[in-house]
Structure formats: C-alpha cells, structure tokens
C-alpha cells in the first residue's frame, strides 16, 4: 500500500518478505472455494492462512488450487492444536507439504474459549524458532507474553482482539497499544475482528497488519466484506501514519473568532 498523496512506499516486511497489503486472510468458515477465491481477490491480500487436515479422497478442488491461482503466499497454521508437541509436529508436516518455513503457531487451551495456551505456545515457539521456522505466533493480548515470544525468536506476534470467531472487536485496545509500543517485530492483530471499523482501529492503534477470517467468510456477502476490510486496513494505516488529534474534554472551535462581524 502506498500513501495515495505522497506516493511514499509503505510496505510491510514480514519474516523477510515485502508485502504491500497489510491484510492477511484466513480461510476458515468459507461457504465455497469460489467465494474464497473472489474474496481473496477483492481483499488484495498477499498472504492466506490454511489449516492442515487429513486428505479427503473425493474432495472436489482444494484450497491449494485457490492459493495457486491467486498467487498468494501460503501461511500454514496449527489450528486446533492443544499441546506444543502437536503444534510442532503439525508445523513439521506443513513445511514438508508446502515447502515453506512460515507457520502461524496456534496452541489453544480449550474449545470453549479457544484462547491461546500460553505455556504450551511459548514452548512450541522456542522449539520451532530453533528449527529456523518463521513463527508468527497467535497470542493473548498480553504484553508480557508477546515480548517473551519475540525474545525466543518469533518473526511476528499476533495478539487477539477478542476470542476467535466472536466478532467482538478489540476488547483491550490499551493492551494492544502496549504490545505495539514494546514490539521489535511486526504486530498482527489476529482474531476477534467483526467488521471494518474493528480492522481500522487495529491499524490506528499501531498494528502492522490484521489477520481475519470469520469476519469475511461468515459475512452475508463475503466478497463485499473482503473489499471493506481492504479499505479499512488501508484507512487505519494512513490514519496511524497521519497521527490523530488528541482527545479533549471540551470543545475547541475550528473557526477563528478573529474577524467575526458584529451582527448582534
């Protein structure tokens, strides 16, 4: 994404790769592969995350075909893993399947909250970073854990805005700001986005990118929402770079009083 006015290049460098889109799209919950493909194109994303599952013998088409046709970078994830060991093994399989060192590391604690299990997550991150994976770690909105993940070598930290699939937006913007302030690696707001304004807020808070799935795939019109998210992320990024005005308790006139005619 380039600044429309100045033409300034504003690329995101994620795990050594230059990206012009700051939107990463998940593929979970999509009604069909055709809709997913159209949504990917409408979003202008360059990175798409996919899960690893058993092959289906008679599956018509595959998400791999969609990835190939759209030319996006594949980001395998460890969705559904409850232990670090399971996540590490899944990452090994993903590397062999797709020939990529990238992995979205996700280790969840339980299926009610789907919240990250911090101890297992950190352990798995350390193992995978030691094996030269580019680990993009899905984490709680916890500034301390985010820093620890960075310290063990993660290429990006991806704090949640709210639990996966809730669409509750960013429940703790202050924590997200703290994570951004302290981070030496890209911060990707991952999970909880419900609509375009949530994605814009993430960028306004200083996040480097947004990862979302359900907000698009489960929208009434996924392709239209993908386009909305593209614009929201761009708008939020530009607003962040532009620098918002401070919030004030009282009104401050924008028109000068000087030169005002006396008509009383």
């Amino acid at each position, binding site marked *: 994404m380039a600044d429309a006015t100045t033409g300034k290049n504003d690329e995101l460098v994620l795990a050594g790769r230059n990206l012009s889109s700051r939107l990463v799209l998940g*593929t979970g919950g999509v009604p069909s592969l055709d809709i997913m493909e159209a949504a990917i194109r409408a979003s202008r994303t360059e990175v798409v995350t*996919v899960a690893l*599952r058993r092959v289906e013998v008679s599956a018509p088409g595959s998400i791999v075909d969609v990835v190939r046709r759209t030319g996006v970078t594949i980001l395998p*994830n460890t969705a*559904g893993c409850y232990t670090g060991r399971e996540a590490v093994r899944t990452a090994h*399989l993903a590397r*062999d*399947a797709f020939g990529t060192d990238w992995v979205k590391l996700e280790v969840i604690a339980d299926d009610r909250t789907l919240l990250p299990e911090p101890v297992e997550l950190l352990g798995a991150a350390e193992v995978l970073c030691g094996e030269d994976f580019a680990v993009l770690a899905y984490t709680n909105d916890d500034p301390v854990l985010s820093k620890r993940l960075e310290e063990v070598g993660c290429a990006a930290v991806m704090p949640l805005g709210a639990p996966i699939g809730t669409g509750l937006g960013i429940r703790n913007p202050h924590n997200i700001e703290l994570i951004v302030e302290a981070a030496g690696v890209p911060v990707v707001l991952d999970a909880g986005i419900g609509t375009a304004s949530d994605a814009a807020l993430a960028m306004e808070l200083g996040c480097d990118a947004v990862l979302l799935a359900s907000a698009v795939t489960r929208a009434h019109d996924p392709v239209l929402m993908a386009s909305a998210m593209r614009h929201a992320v761009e708008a939020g990024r530009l607003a962040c770079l532009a620098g918002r005005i401070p919030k004030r308790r009282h009104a401050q006139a924008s028109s000068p009083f000087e030169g005002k005619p006396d008509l009383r």
Partner: protein
Amino acid sequence: MRITLNGETEDVEAGVSIAEIVAGLVEDVSATAVALNGEVVPRSTWALAHPAEGDDVEVVTAAPGG
C-alpha cells in the same frame, strides 16, 4: 498387515511404502505430507519408508481453516 490410516483401520500388504499409500489416496501429492506415528516422514524418503503392523499413518493436506 493392519495399520491405522487417517484414523481408520486398513489392511495393507506387508512391505508397502508410504509413497504407495499416498499414491493410493490422492492424485496430486504436491501439497501433501505424511506422519508415521506422529513424526513427519520427509517427502524425499516416502519410497523408502515402510509402516509396520499397528503403525499409525496420517496423510494430510491444506484445508480451509484458521
């Protein structure tokens, strides 16, 4: 010989290779990976890897998710 293949018990010929098992499941093996008892079997060794009686074989690929 019995193995567990993607969660189902299967009768396979003794000495069958991982490469043969994968070829029997999918046409395009390019985005596929295999775990034997939980550990990845690198693609380059599929032809040389042979499951034993009772082994657990998982053959996976990308799926929408995450």
